């Protein structure tokens, strides 16, 4: 029983935090909030040297992890990304790296993984058109050509990193069922429309595929195997999204706690008023719960525990919703000052509300969890 990070992971956290505070703090990115692009490719490449894109990739493709639980290592990074509201597509790039590393052919791994690991290839995940994880939500169609290649037509929505991505992992409906393809952003017929989002700290795109020709060699999976790719990607994304929320929540809670100690009204720190104190206690409980849920999901997925699916659905049910609630409470407790554009709390709130809906919203994960626990109950109680 050691449900905590190890020393190497603590070191990874310290290194990452120091780097992000120096090179990509929230304050340093303030001027970019309303600009078309906020991603800094140099930061990404420097981050790649710190392991941002390497953890889920084997050493033979230039990757490497700090522990034998690479996903847990990645949780450390995602928490730090959340804490500082990073713009970089840590989640989609690693989802794509993981998919290629686990499901790709040797040629595909050789072709893409070293670039991703080096930070040269930014990857994004085109899940569905409507942003729901249900594969029924795919609008993309893949038709097979005479040469064995494919033609992709349709749209993928709510794609984090689409505006800067070099490579897309694209889920499409093919004649053989769902299928995944690796599509370079430079392919003819690919275009990206930048979305205007509530979140100001990241950029999302709608990716249009207008008869995009994809060689057969770029097919990653098809049929049942494509469903596996999708489910694995969704599980990894849910864990990492939870970890970003945990990092953000820990930070915003700490800031709000400090504010409640410093802000004097009626001659007393507002944190001395018991109604505020009990709400802070409730938020502290909720942060602990978010952390426990996320870390357990990471561990269960990393080690392939029997209850990994339930653990993922639990994290998806609870964490982003609790985080959004926490941001609202922190805004309320920070009062008028929190209501200003200049205070960071709205950046956290805006991002938290967006996090809730990116990889299956909490009601979606709850339906999953209900399905899982009721099917188990049937088995146990025939």
């Amino acid at each position, binding site marked *: 029983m050691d449900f905590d990070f190890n020393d190497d992971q603590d070191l990874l956290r310290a290194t990452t935090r120091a780097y992000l505070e120096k090179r990509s703090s929230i304050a340093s990115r303030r001027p970019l909030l309303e600009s078309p692009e906020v991603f800094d490719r140099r930061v990404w490449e420097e981050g790649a040297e710190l392991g941002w894109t390497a953890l889920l990739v084997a050493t033979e493709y230039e990757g490497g992890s700090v522990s034998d639980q690479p996903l847990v290592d990645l949780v450390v990074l995602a928490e730090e990304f959340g804490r500082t509201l990073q713009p970089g597509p840590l989640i989609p790039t690693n989802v794509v790296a993981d998919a290629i590393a686990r499901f790709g052919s040797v040629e595909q791994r050789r072709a893409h993984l070293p670039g991703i690991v080096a930070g040269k290839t930014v990857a994004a995940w085109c899940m569905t058109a409507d942003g729901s994880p*249900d594969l029924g939500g795919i609008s993309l169609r893949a038709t097979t050509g005479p040469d064995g290649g494919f033609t992709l037509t349709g749209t993928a929505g709510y794609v984090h990193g689409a505006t800067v991505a070099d490579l897309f992992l694209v889920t499409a409906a093919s004649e053989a069922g769902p299928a995944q393809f690796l599509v370079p952003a430079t392919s003819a017929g690919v275009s990206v429309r930048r979305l*205007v989002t509530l979140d100001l700290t990241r950029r*999302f795109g709608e990716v249009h595929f207008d008869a995009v020709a994809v060689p057969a060699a770029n097919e990653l999976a098809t049929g049942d195997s494509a469903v596996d790719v999708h489910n694995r990607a969704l599980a990894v994304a849910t864990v990492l999204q939870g970890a970003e929320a945990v990092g953000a929540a820990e930070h915003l809670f700490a800031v709000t706690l400090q504010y409640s100690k410093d802000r004097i009204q009626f001659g007393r720190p507002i944190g001395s008023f018991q109604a505020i104190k009990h709400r802070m206690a409730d938020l502290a409980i909720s942060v602990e719960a978010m952390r426990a849920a996320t870390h357990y999901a990471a561990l269960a997925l990393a080690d392939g525990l029997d209850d990994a699916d339930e653990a993922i659905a639990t994290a998806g049910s609870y964490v982003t919703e609790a985080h959004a609630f926490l941001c609202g409470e922190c805004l309320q407790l920070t009062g008028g000052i929190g209501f200003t554009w200049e*205070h960071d709390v709205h950046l956290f709130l805006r991002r938290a509300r967006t996090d809730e809906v990116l990889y299956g*919203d909490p*009601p979606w994960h709850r339906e999953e969890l209900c399905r899982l626990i009721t099917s188990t109950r049937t088995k146990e109680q025939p």
Partner: protein
Amino acid sequence: MDVRIPEIPASYDAYRDELRAFIAKHVPTLEMKPRSGLRVPDTAEDVEAQRNFVRALHDAGYRQDRFQAHDGDPFEQRILQQALSTVPEAAMGNPLVAGALKLFGTDDQKAKYLPPISRGDHIWSQLFSEPNAGSDLSNLKTRADLDGDVYVVNGQKVWTTWAQWSDYGYLLARTEPTPGPAGITAFVLDMKLPGVDVRPLREITGTTDFNEVFLTDVRVPVTDVIGQPGNGWKVTNMSLAMERSGIGGGGGGAVVGELIDAARLHNRRGRSAIEADDVRQGLARLAARSRIHRAIGHKIATRAAKGKLSVSDAPIGKIWFGELNLAMCEFALRLQGPRSALTEGDPAAYLDGVWQDRFLYARAWTIAGGSNEIMRNMIAERGLGLPKEPRGS
């Protein structure tokens, strides 16, 4: 028991028709995006267009009694209020001072200030909150020191709606160095006086609805005191109570209808969200809270009419409205699913992001005008007689 209000006689139909036609003809098209209701214009042109519209209404005889010392014909007033409630272009500035002037103003002040508010010639704002006097308004530090027949005012105000376009301010400042409510005086502040420096403040919505106002050696004539020196806390509480019951009195029916529309339009797992039991239960919860809001309003109006208002009435109305409004916005966002991430300016955003803006702005109702935490304290201490929180040193 009865909540009916007398039906407006058919003889007023002509008045209503003329009014509607008048509004339709004169209502300006502003540059500014309406978003979630008109808040505060971005440009002087828009302000001037609004002002001209209000003047035109006034000059045509459409005068709201809340801005005047005398009341108009009650049926005409109701028709006017109903018609203008859907025309945010007619709302200009913060008219809170009108109540204070009516209750506490001298005859000269009433004559000088009330008609121009009514006509739209003067735009007013309210200079109460300070950086260190938010929830604890009585802690305000802005000083007004008597120097002959003027007060010299120094200090900083914040959360001042419309200050950037105001002609006058309803100012609270401290004329005696004693702490707390005693020693606070209410003033009329001419915003064009030297030393008044208005700096617009941008909020989390991205809009600029509020301002900071810096006051440096502003010389305010003693004749601009409202009520008596040192009596400002009483003047304020009366007008704040009016504002809070106003906030609490708004309806919510229209908004529930909008939630139904959103639930019908958006899908969940391949079917319309409105077919899902949890969405239906959630809609009904909000609809019930909205209807109860109206019923609580009837209770408060009845007590007001009998002169039996409780100190808890305004806070109850304000908390109920503020929390319901926030819950509706959150519900609307969740109905949109992934699409809730899109906001104003994105062609795919639902209703051009109006719910996203409302969601962010919703906190104005739970924080401003006395936060819900302060309202709960008022209910507990003044309404229920529970012991007061000790003030720190």
